[in-house]
Each structure stands twice: as structure tokens, then as C-alpha cells.
């Protein structure tokens, strides 16, 4: 009688241990990525099978890109604040508003150019096949993601 109960409880505990073991072993890689300093780049490394040296180069490129990006964001915020101020004072398109809009558009174009440049550099750092796959995916997600029909909704 005692043996039957031992098997019953032991079976349940074994199932629990098997579940926990497989779950923790299976999610160890993702947990590691989430705990890293830059989870997004850790994901990139895993997704595109990058070596440590490639990953190191991409991290450096990324840091440089983000520094420039922060400066461009500051300029965009400045332009937007100026535009908001101008729009509050009038109900027509003045030459100054026109000029501010053109500057904002130029900044946006510059941002996209720098972003594309970054994508190209990152893809060149990767092994050729992975670089092509990365480029196709990231362009589809960013510069090519807005279709004309989406803009109307």
C-alpha cells in the first residue's frame, strides 16, 4: 500500500521536475538575452548567428549610431516645438511655417539616410547570407513598412 502511494506521488514529482527542467533549459537562451545589457542586440546576435567578433563590431557601430540619433532627435524636437509655436499664432501657412516644415522634412530624410547607412554597415559586418536576410527584414520593418493605403487610415 505504501509502495503504491510512493509511486503515485513520485510520478507526480517526476513530471513536475521534467517540466521544470525542460522549461528552464529551453528558455535559458532567451532569459540570458533579456538579462544582457542590450537585449535587442543580444537578440540580433542570436537571430543572425553572429560570432563574438562580429557582435563586438556591431555593438560599436550601434553605439555610434545611437549617439548621432540622439542629436538628430534633439534637433527634431526643437523644430517641432518651433512649429507648434508658429501654428498657435496663425491659421494660415506663413513662409516661416513653410520653412520650418521643410527643415523638419530635411531632418526626417537625414534620419532615414543615417538609419539606412547603419543597416548597410551592420549587414556588411554579418556573414553574407545573414547580412542579406537582415537587410531584407529590417528595410521591410522600417523604410518600406508604410504603404500608401496605410497612410489614409
Amino acid at each position, binding site marked *: 500500500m505504501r509502495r*503504491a502511494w510512493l509511486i503515485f506521488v513520485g510520478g507526480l514529482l517526476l513530471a513536475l521536475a521534467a*517540466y521544470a527542467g525542460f522549461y528552464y533549459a529551453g528558455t535559458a537562451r*532567451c532569459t540570458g538575452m533579456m538579462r544582457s545589457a542590450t537585449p535587442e542586440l543580444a537578440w540580433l546576435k542570436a537571430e543572425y548567428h553572429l560570432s563574438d567578433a562580429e557582435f563586438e563590431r556591431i555593438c560599436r557601430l550601434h553605439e555610434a549610431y545611437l549617439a548621432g540619433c540622439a542629436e538628430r532627435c534633439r534637433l527634431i524636437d526643437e523644430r517641432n516645438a518651433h512649429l507648434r509655436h508658429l501654428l498657435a499664432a496663425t491659421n494660415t501657412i506663413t513662409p516661416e511655417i513653410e520653412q520650418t516644415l521643410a527643415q523638419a522634412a530635411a531632418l526626417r530624410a537625414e534620419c532615414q539616410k543615417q538609419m539606412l547607412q547603419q543597416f548597410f554597415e551592420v549587414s556588411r559586418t554579418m556573414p553574407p547570407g545573414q547580412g542579406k536576410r537582415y537587410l531584407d527584414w529590417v528595410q521591410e520593418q522600417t523604410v518600406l513598412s508604410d504603404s500608401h493605403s496605410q497612410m489614409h487610415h
Partner: protein
Amino acid sequence: MKPENELDSERLLERTLKEWRVEDPLPPAFREKVWRRIDRGEIPAAEGLWARLSSWINRSLSRPALAASYVAVLLMAGLATGYWQARTDNARVSQELRGRYVRMMDPYRMARH
């Protein structure tokens, strides 16, 4: 040596037992039911769910083949559930990080969403 009145009462009890006859009829198939219960080690329903479960566990898991199957099935169920749960969570984390990477690289996308 027993006192006289105690001997009398014993004789009286003996005589009464000898004369005692059960006259009520037994329920139908009483004998078969008794043997069936003994054979199965059956516990009456009145003893409750816990007793029945306990009896079932004792009966089933005392057979080596059933016990081995029980452990094997539970082990497989645990492994499969752990595997699928990990797979689902990995896909979710991967999707989240993919989105975060795109938003990090494209500041306008971050502003739009």
C-alpha cells in the same frame, strides 16, 4: 473456581445461543455479492471519494506494468509541457525583442506607435 450464579448464567447463554435461529431471509444474491466484494476488495460507496481513490491507487499501482506506464506517461507529459511552454515563451520574447530593435533603430516608428 466460579461461583454458582455465574455458572448458571453461562449455561443460560449457551442454551439461548443453541436455540437462536435467524428467521429473516437474506437479501437476493447475498452470497454472490459478498464473494464479489471480497474478490475485488471492493469498498462500499459510502466510504467516500477519497477512500475509493485510495483503493484505486493501491489496486492499480501495485501492478508493476501499470505503475511503470503511469510513471512513463507522467514523465512524457512533463517533458512535453515544458518543451511547449518554453517554445511559446521563446517565441514571445523573440517577437518582443524584434519589435524593440526596430523601434530603437527607427525613432519615427517609436513616435508613431
